[in-house]
């Protein structure tokens, strides 16, 4: 399940971010009538069709797996938090319908109608995230029901379950993560093209749209990251303590970066401490006391090494991603020739995978930080898995299928790009774009 989710999320973020970028490019075309923008939008829509198709498949996989792997979790949770899943079904529907219109409608719809089809596409992606994150947030902060003394669920309030405490911040954080990832992914592709000597307007504009977009949304993402830290402090103090590698309850707690948490010695080996910062992050007060892991029974501790490391990776990589945007902002007015520099382009290329690493490690932080609970303080993972046998064989089979599909998809996307070049080389007059995707 974990591996399917990690796989799906890669496509899901594109499903959220790409429609926005598509609309930007197409909107620019409609305004400026510069054909390069239209070419960009068309190329992206083709590539997006492939990733969306694969995303739809991996999403199907997930909805089945919820039942096939976690039937007892679903039996417990379905009656409380099934609502957002159903709504996500609708949102996904809207996305699929308007994606089809968008992709196949370039020549069938008027330019304006076609552009307008992008709006429900964007909304569908945003809403899908809204509902799915709502369900995930509920696993962190389960509300909207009461357990009586026999362990039976009563007083179900689906609306309260959907708008649980962790939801607003978690939603914003995931949404902006998706936008950042999409922006950097696009910028990285064009930076790679420029590095290969395809120095034309098509590539420069592709890079500019992706990078500008990512650079604008990233600072907002840092703010949502701060909001989420405050929320986790309040709702899941053990998760916060594990993320930070804080074993002992501490007043004026420092932020420990890097290092390896050692459960035996109850300290982080080789970490760098920044005084007061954790208290400031969690409570906006340098003298606040932050609860350590010692305040909780050890049997409920998550995997400390994994959670702390994933968290470190997320914040370091996330902060480092500010660099390309800042440099570009500076260079834009004063040093335009920097945009042609190999070192700058290489940095952009690296920022694509970096954004993905950042997003995945954030996801590992929140999911692993909840262990051993499937539903925080309510249901443990071991009590939610299926009683069916023979799972391993299927797991291996599905993993192989995933690997094959991914390899094929990447090779087909690459081929798409080289085909475009060949076509242009054969047909296009010199001076016009001759680039890849």
């Amino acid at each position, binding site marked *: 399940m974990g591996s399917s989710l990690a796989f799906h999320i890669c496509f899901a973020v594109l499903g959220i971010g790409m429609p926005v970028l598509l609309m930007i490019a197409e909107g620019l075309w409609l305004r400026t009538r510069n054909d390069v923008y239209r070419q960009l939008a*068309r190329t992206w829509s083709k590539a997006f069709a*492939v990733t*969306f*198709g694969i995303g*739809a*498949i991996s999403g*199907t*996989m997930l*909805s*089945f797996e*919820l*039942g*096939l792997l976690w*039937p*007892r979790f*679903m*039996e417990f949770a*379905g*009656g*409380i938090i*099934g*609502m957002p*899943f*159903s*709504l*996500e*079904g*609708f949102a996904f*529907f*809207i996305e*699929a*319908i*308007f994606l*089809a*219109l968008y*992709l*196949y*409608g*370039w*020549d*069938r*719809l008027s330019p304006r109608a076609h552009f307008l089809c992008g709006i429900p596409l964007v909304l569908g992606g945003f809403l899908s995230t809204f509902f799915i994150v709502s369900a995930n947030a509920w696993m962190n902060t389960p509300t909207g029901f009461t357990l009586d003394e026999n362990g039976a669920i*009563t007083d*179900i*309030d*689906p*609306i309260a379950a959907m708008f649980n405490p962790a939801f607003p911040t978690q939603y914003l954080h995931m949404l902006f993560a998706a936008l950042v990832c999409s922006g950097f992914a696009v910028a990285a592709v064009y930076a790679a093209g420029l590095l290969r000597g395809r120095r034309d307007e098509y590539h420069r504009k592709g890079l500019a749209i992706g990078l500008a977009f990512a650079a604008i949304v990233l600072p907002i993402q840092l703010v949502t990251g701060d909001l989420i830290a405050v929320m986790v402090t309040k709702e899941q103090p053990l998760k916060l303590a594990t993320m930070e590698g804080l074993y002992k309850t501490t007043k004026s707690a420092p932020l420990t970066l890097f290092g390896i948490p050692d459960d035996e010695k109850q300290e982080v080996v080789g970490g760098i401490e920044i005084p007061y910062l954790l208290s400031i992050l969690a409570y906006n007060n340098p003298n606040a006391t932050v609860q350590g892991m010692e305040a909780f029974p050890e049997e409920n501790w998550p995997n400390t090494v994994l959670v702390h490391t994933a968290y470190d990776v997320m914040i370091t990589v996330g902060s480092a991603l500010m660099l390309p945007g800042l440099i570009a902002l500076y260079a834009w007015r004063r040093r335009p020739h920097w945009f042609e520099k190999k070192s700058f382009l290489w940095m952009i290329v690296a920022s694509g995978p970096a954004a993905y690493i950042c997003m995945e490690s954030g996801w590992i932080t929140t999911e692993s930080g909840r262990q051993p609970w499937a539903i925080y303080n309510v249901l443990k993972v071991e009590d939610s898995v*299926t*009683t*069916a*046998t023979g799972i391993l064989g*299927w797991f291996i*089979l*599905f993993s192989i*299928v995933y690997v094959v*599909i991914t390899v094929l*998809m990447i090779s*087909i996307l690459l*081929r798409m790009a080289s*085909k475009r070049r060949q076509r242009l080389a054969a047909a296009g007059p010199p001076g016009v774009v001759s680039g890849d995707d």
Partner: protein
Amino acid sequence: MTTDPTLVALAVLSLLVGLSMYAVFAGADFGGGVWDLLAAGERKDEQRSAIARAMGPVWEANHVWIIFLIVVLFTAFPAAFAALCIGLFAPLSLVLLGMILRGGGFVLRAHAEDEPLVQRYLGFVFSVSSVITPFALGWCAGVVAAGALQPDGKGGWLMVPWSELLAPFPIVTGLLAVCICSYIAATFLTVETEGALREDFRRRALFAGGGVALFSAIGLPLAWSEAPELSHELLMGRALPLVVLAGVLALLGFIVTASGAWSLMRPVAVAFVLVVLWAWGAAQWPYAVTPYLTFQESASSDAMLTVYLACLAIGAAILVPSLIYLFRVFKGSHPEAGSW
């Protein structure tokens, strides 16, 4: 605390409507895969590209119905969902595998234009999995109707043993599902094509219709011994009128297809599939898992079902016009799909 029976009935109804949409639209896409596999004769390539053109813009939207069904099932009937997923672990995994390979094969094939070998291989994956998926779905329905999915007596469920999975009745229902999909796909393709190609698909529609008749004829007597609850309702109970109607529609379908009355083929085929499904639904009611768990017993709380039904109404108000727009643009007066 029991759930309001009216709410339960409405939720079941929404499931059945979703299932109907899935059967007609996605059923046609699966059937398209079957005909891709069985493409033959001098117009082999034309047949395949007609199928790909018909499916291209709509298959993802059609596929979403199964997601809708799953999420509604676990929202409204979580206990039934858990039972099905534990008991039918193996066949449902096969359904899932089929769906992944079908979608993956189709999407990737569409973009592998320059690689005839890769394209042929992906086409094979797509078409074979288009046979497997409806088979496995029909198979699951047969297993449940046969009462093979049983409680373990400790509040959980047993995995259905292979001996029961491989009983004749579920296998026949699986084959019946494949034939129904092939019939509806061939019918749609007949209407959407012209000339010799249309003739190809018309003959295929007749052939698939024959398969439907054959497996129905084998399935009903088998049901008598293997799935008594179902067959009693089908042949002597509340589902009988629908069964008779299905028989009439089958005959009508044969007549309009054989005589080439194009305009009538699609409505008759759609009506036939819907009536078959609703007959099955009426016969299986009130059980979610025959005969151990009713929908009533497995339902969520009143609060959940109320919110769900309210959202369904709002969602449908947005969804239905969007779907109509989609099909208007791509399936309207210009059967050729747009290029991109």
